[in-house]
């Protein structure tokens, strides 16, 4: 899974990169969780959860997906380390859809070495597109 953080003032930009939109979305979720699991010790895939969301455009789908993960991290005090996403483009109208399985464990401040707490994903600099080398890139800014 390829991901990176990029700069945005007081907040943090997340970018996922992959050969398909699905891989890029997985990268974005990994970039999100890396904010709260910055340590090298990693996240144990103890529990698996399923996520399903739809949106009229891919950027909305990304924001919705990330907000879904943020909600679970916050409400259930979880952190995730493995992501398997399947993003489907609409064929002839309709919504973009995402089905994902995410695996993680209850958050442990000692082991996970968090830096900041994500509050919510924004549409700021939100993009889902193919880069010059044909790779898929998805990104947005997360308020922390």
């Amino acid at each position, binding site marked *: 899974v390829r991901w990176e*953080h*990029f*700069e*945005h*003032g*007081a*907040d*943090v930009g997340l970018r996922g990169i992959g050969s398909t939109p699905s891989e890029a979305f997985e990268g974005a979720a990994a970039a999100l969780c890396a904010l*709260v699991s*910055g340590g090298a010790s990693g996240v144990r895939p103890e529990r698996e959860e399923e996520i399903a969301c739809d949106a*009229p455009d891919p950027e*909305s789908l990304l*924001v*919705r997906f990330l*907000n879904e993960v*943020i*909600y679970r*991290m*916050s*409400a259930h*005090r979880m*952190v995730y380390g493995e992501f398997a996403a399947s993003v489907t483009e609409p064929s002839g109208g309709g919504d973009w859809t995402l089905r994902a399985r995410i695996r993680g464990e209850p*958050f442990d*401040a000692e082991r996970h*070495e*968090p*830096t*900041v*707490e994500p*509050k*919510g*994903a*924004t*549409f*700021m600099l*939100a993009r889902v597109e193919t880069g010059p080398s044909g790779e898929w890139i998805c990104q947005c*800014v997360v*308020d*922390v």
Partner: protein
Amino acid sequence: VSGDGARPVEVAPGVWELPRRGAMRVPGRIFASAPLLEEIDERVREQISNVASLPGIVGASMAMPDAHWGYGFPIGGVAAFDPDRGGVVSAGGVGFDISCGVRTYATGLRASELGSRLETIAHDLYRTVPAGVGAGGALTLRLDELDALLIEGARWAVARGFGSEEELSRIEEGGVAEGARPEKVSRRARERQLHEVGSLGSGNHYLELQEVDRVFDERLASAFGVSGGDLLLSIHCGSRGLGHQIGAEFMEKLPRLAPRFGISLPDRELACAPIRSPEGEDYLGAMRAAINCALANRQVIGGLARRVFARHAPEAEWALVYDVSHNTCKLEEHEVGGEPRRLYVHRKGATRSFGPGHPDLPAAYREAGQPVLVGGTMGTASYILAGTKEAERLAFGSSCHGAGRKMSRTQAKNTWQGGELIRELGARGIVVKAHTKKGAAEEAPGAYKDVDEVAAAAETAGLSRRVARVRPLAVIKG
């Protein structure tokens, strides 16, 4: 709207105007010194222009001296909307951390009296006040217990033994936002709050022990109950998971409805609805519930801090100086063109700054004006300012809220190393208790603008007067 090429014009000392152009309905107005104006770059000016294009905006789209690039509105943005002229309420104009704010207590102690107890108290505060990612809160509630908190705000916490009744008058709106509608707060937002009541959070939030190191105005300082050398305790935090979830839900939902409202959004993050629409009313009801959540949260933390002092410095005599919220939208009366009008004033990273005589001020501050609490950095200073009549005339009674970020988190992390930074501050006599060292590096004082310059610029522009500068002695970070 593109901000390209538009240079602000100085129209009064420290007041700059961005002329109306393109889709802007009103001009932009920036309050800044010349050096601070340089830091309010093209991207911020574009956000000011975008806000100026929203329906029903009154007067000007404004930016405070500490303004920086945000999403939708700039951080440090102020805008007022008239519900009778198609005005909107914007979730992007409030932000995720609804009613984030600063609360300052006088302890009745002199900082010099503390001696070695400083370290002990700081350590106990660090252990007692939950802070940091996933730390949980001081209280755990059931879903059905939240409604009362969302309606009663700080009063809810006082009734449960956190702080005292007389503190309520020293909180904006008496510690309770009217018009909260808990039924408009989603189950998910509630779930995020159940274990976060009484928690600081992370990022730029903090709890500080501070010393008044300079008094600018003895009369106002005395009215606020502070004098040189006093030990103060300040809390900076917001509405936690509940506010974040409300922000996320409405910022996603409202832009999709814009075409139905006939609103053209230059930036999706402006996420707004007409004030007089079911969706606008829903947001206002939920947002006010989140304001109460933040007020209760700061009240609980204040109560916890008081208990720590009772253990180590029982001679302390607590008095709440004030509690301000700097991410809000509030219904207020302002005079526009000689006429009083009821407007919805958005302050996103901006503080109310009501002047002497304002009817909303507690009797004790009616003559002095409102205390404006400005949170600085852990290595420099914070400020206590006083609101002015001029701020009411120029900026719907608003002033700055902090030092204002100038360097991104990534840059800061690459520039400073957390452990080293904490040692350096320690060598300067500042005790830092941080739950994460990397988090501390991101909050390095050098990542912020010069707070002295910000407070001075706000005074030059007339938005507030400097009352006292306070320096950190001990900092608890998430």
